[in-house]
């Protein structure tokens, strides 16, 4: 990751206020953030810190109360619904904790629909790419099954394949291993690391130390503000234990 990094996504003074009756709760407080191209950026923080909220603000999945978000220097926070939809289809990929596959579509169809919506390639190419992704994610066997017929790991890998079908500029992942067992968690994290190694920019929210250790840049969010940041070398399996210790030590310093 040497040289000057390009900013792919930038947030300026992002504020999010939720109203509960007459009470206003400021979840994000004027956050300035930059996400760099080809980075595996991780946002950590205690529960309720606003990690997912920040992720969805940056991904245009939710409206921001104040501030601006720029994707490749274009302000996307002012995009109309239809333009935002195009951006999500062409440039962003999302992976959620609960997988969120459409339950009456097979794994393959879930991926195909996303590919068709992105309209980047012909239907044949989308299908070819979907098959490749399923193979790459090791869920080819289960491709014709409905989401409830596969394991959580398989579903999440299919969800990653769906997020990747449109060759997104940035992959957003919200606790992608939160609902998985240990074996499946490792599989999913390996996939994300592989993708990043191949140049995929990733922005992931997690409170799992081992998941965070996959990133090369970790931001710590607390009380609606980014309190600290840890820079790591790109992920290397051989150094995994050391990375986890470094992250753990850093988090201890933040009283996590």
């Amino acid at each position, binding site marked *: 990751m040497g040289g000057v990094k390009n900013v792919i996504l930038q947030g300026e003074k992002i504020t999010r206020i939720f109203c509960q009756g007459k009470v206003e709760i400021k979840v994000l407080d004027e956050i300035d953030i930059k996400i760099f191209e080809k980075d595996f950026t991780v946002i950590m923080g205690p*529960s*309720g810190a606003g*990690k*997912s*909220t920040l992720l*969805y603000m940056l991904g245009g*999945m*939710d409206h921001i109360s104040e501030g601006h978000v720029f994707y490749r220097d274009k302000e996307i926070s002012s995009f109309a*619904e*239809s333009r935002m*939809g*195009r*951006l*999500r*289809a*062409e440039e*962003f990929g*999302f992976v*959620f*904790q*609960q997988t*969120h*596959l*459409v*339950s*009456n*579509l*097979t794994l*393959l*169809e879930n991926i*195909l*629909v*996303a590919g*068709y*919506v*992105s309209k980047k390639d*012909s*239907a044949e190419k*989308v299908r070819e790419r979907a098959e490749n992704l399923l193979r790459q994610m090791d869920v080819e066997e289960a*491709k*014709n*099954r*409905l*989401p*409830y*017929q596969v394991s959580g790991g398989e579903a999440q890998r299919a969800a990653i394949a*769906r997020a990747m079908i*449109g060759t997104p500029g940035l992959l957003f992942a*919200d*606790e992608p291993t*939160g609902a998985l067992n240990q074996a499946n968690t490792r599989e999913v994290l390996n996939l994300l690391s592989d993708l990043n190694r191949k140049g995929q920019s990733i922005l992931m929210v997690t409170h799992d130390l081992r998941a965070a250790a996959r990133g090369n840049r970790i931001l710590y969010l607390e009380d609606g503000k980014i309190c600290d940041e840890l820079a790591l070398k790109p992920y290397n399996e051989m150094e995994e234990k050391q990375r986890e210790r470094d992250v753990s030590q850093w988090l201890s310093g933040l009283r996590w």
Partner: protein
Amino acid sequence: MENLMIIRAGMKRHKGSLFGIAILMFLTALFLNVVLMTAFSGNSYIREEMERAGFGDLTAWTADVPDMEFLLESIREQEGVEDAKVQRLIFSEYEANGVESDSEGQMIPWISAEIGISTRSRYHFFENSLSEYAKAPKEIGEQEVYVSPSMKSMMDLEPGDIITFPIARGGRNLSLTVAGYYEDPFMGSSMIGMKGFLVSEKTYEKILSVIEDSGMDALARNGSMIHIETAEGITVSEMNRVLTTNKPLSMYTEFIHSAETIAGFMVILQNAFSALFAAFAVVLLGAALVVMGHSISGLVEQEWKNFGILKTIGFTGKQLAGQVMMQYMAAVGSGVMLGMLLAVLISGQISRMMVTTTGVLLPIRFPLLPCMGVLIILLLLSAGFCVLCLGRLGRISPMAVIRRECEGQTECGRNLCGNKRWNGKRGFIQRADARMRRKKVSAKHMGYGTGFPAIRAKGLTFHLALRQVLTGRKRYISACLVAGMLVFFASLTGRINDWLGVDGKGMMDAFNPADLDLGVQVLGKIPAQEMEQVVLSYTDITDSYMLAMPSVSVNGTNYTANVITEPERFHISAGKTCREKNEVVLTEMLAADLGAEAGELVTIRGNKGSREFRISGIYHCANDMGANLGMSREGYLSIGEDDSRLWCYHYFLSDPSRKQALTEKLEQVYGGDVYVHENSWPGLLGIISAMHLLIFFLYGVSVIFVCIVTGMAGARILDTERKDIGIYKSIGCSVEMLRLSFALRFGLVSAVGAVIGTLAAVGFTDVIVSSVMQLAGISNFASGNTPGSILFPGLTVTFLFLGFAWLLAGRIRKGDMNVLTAE
């Protein structure tokens, strides 16, 4: 107490669905009660008024009676006759607003003391607005005339308009100004061609003297109605038979009708429309029950977990079912009660709207027993439906409910049970898997393992909609069924409308014994050839025949005979036409009245003699409520006197568009000496406009139904699919695409319903409508089959569902994607 708390909470939570059910039941109850009130009030009012006004069990119309006292006495002497009263009148053609009458009008003097009957108490008068009664005028002016409100629909007659009566040749016409409207319970309906006109006694006397002075040149005739009361135990048909053999009466009688027949004519239109409305109300009831069933299923699915929790704290399945049932019954009950109450107001309004068609202002009475019957039936049906839909609550154990086993099993808020079936040891398996295994369908074409059509890039929106419909069939079944029912009824009505045609040709064909373009009856001494030359100067005559309609008695009872020079023109439905001199054809109704069949003999008497005729076949003609017969000219002349004035020349023109100009020319040249008519009559306009009103109303109610059904089913679907919508948005699907896809689902299911409804209409319209039309004597209903009548209702209902679903799906725009957030 605890039940009440849960019921209250449930009603609060499901207020949208319950409100929808209440509205559907309100509309259904409103329709049913309006039909009942209008039909019951109309039928009873007409009979009461006829009795009050002194019209007898039988009425004979007579003309040129030299000694009325002698005639009355001879009638009174008949066995079974209790009394006979005369009401004097003058028969005359009339013309107003450029429209000529198609049958003679009857000018009735408004006098205080006739022979036993005072016309002053006989008739009610209307305000000019026709919305209520007015005080009877002190006197009717010599230049004034009062007409039936149906003249407004038939000839567009309004107070101040002029009616011209040709009293005698040589231009001796009488022009009277319409002073107002009166209620004629005897001939007021627009379905009755002969019309009464109330004139002053002085005017009546003046006309009589003109008739006497004119001698042979008189066009109007001195006539009377003799109202005959029969003794108890004597049937009207027996009496009719006796009177037609009474020599003095039969000499002067033009026609005799029973009170029953007259009342039937008076309410024929109202009864026909009541039958149509009643059928529509039944369709609405079916639709309302389907929606209620769907709504209950949705509620059970939504509340499955809560039911489980309530079961763990001691509630039984029956109690839970009872609580849900109470919520629905409260909605149904309030809707039905409100519908009943409002029906009184609506019925009154309808009565006022119909006054120009029925000729009478029907009072709205509340038929307690039938209306209570409707209330009880609606409540029982609804309760039965609830019990049927809620029965499954009792069969599930509390833990199974909480675990969401079997019914209501959900994942991400989606019901998957509809997609599963039980497969022994393997438990529930995907229906699609099972289907795939059974059919061994290629994965490429069948959705990669789902057994459903594949999702394709081209038409992605449609394919997604189709998949949602196929995987969630139960959710859309109510929309499909309701669409089917509405389309069926709309198609049925549309096909009746097509049969009527723009100019009412369908109905005219039903009433005419044979087709025609133009009919000319020569009343004066004009040679028919000369009149034909006038016709030929406008357009060629492609074909012609002559028709007369004298009165004859068949086996002793009077009927109208359609006597034709070319019997092959009769519309024959069974057997063959009456080509031979000793053959007749009967309508289906007359054959049933006489209990006679083709091949049997009947005795027919004319004004010259009588003899036996063989029934050669059955034909269609709805005149006289369908009770008439057809004869050849030769056949009739063997029992009846010939008279040139009997015959009407019916022409087929090479250029029928010249009919109007030709009619005007003939009237200009021959004045009152000819009577020209087309294949139409003024009352038809009223029927056609009433039909259009019905269709307009029907589509209006259908719009409300579609709106409610889409709203109820769609809102629930949108609620359960919040996450799916979020997912689709997260992968870049635009709101517009998702809206369209949602709307397409309803479009698809309603299209399926529309196809079923259209096919049902094609298959059953004629059977159903024929049975209703037979009440009006029309036995040959064959619905119209234009592409419009076939496709329009289905397309309309489908687009309505599509449109309302699209509007409802506007909620997708507001959908919050936080539904996908893990935190």
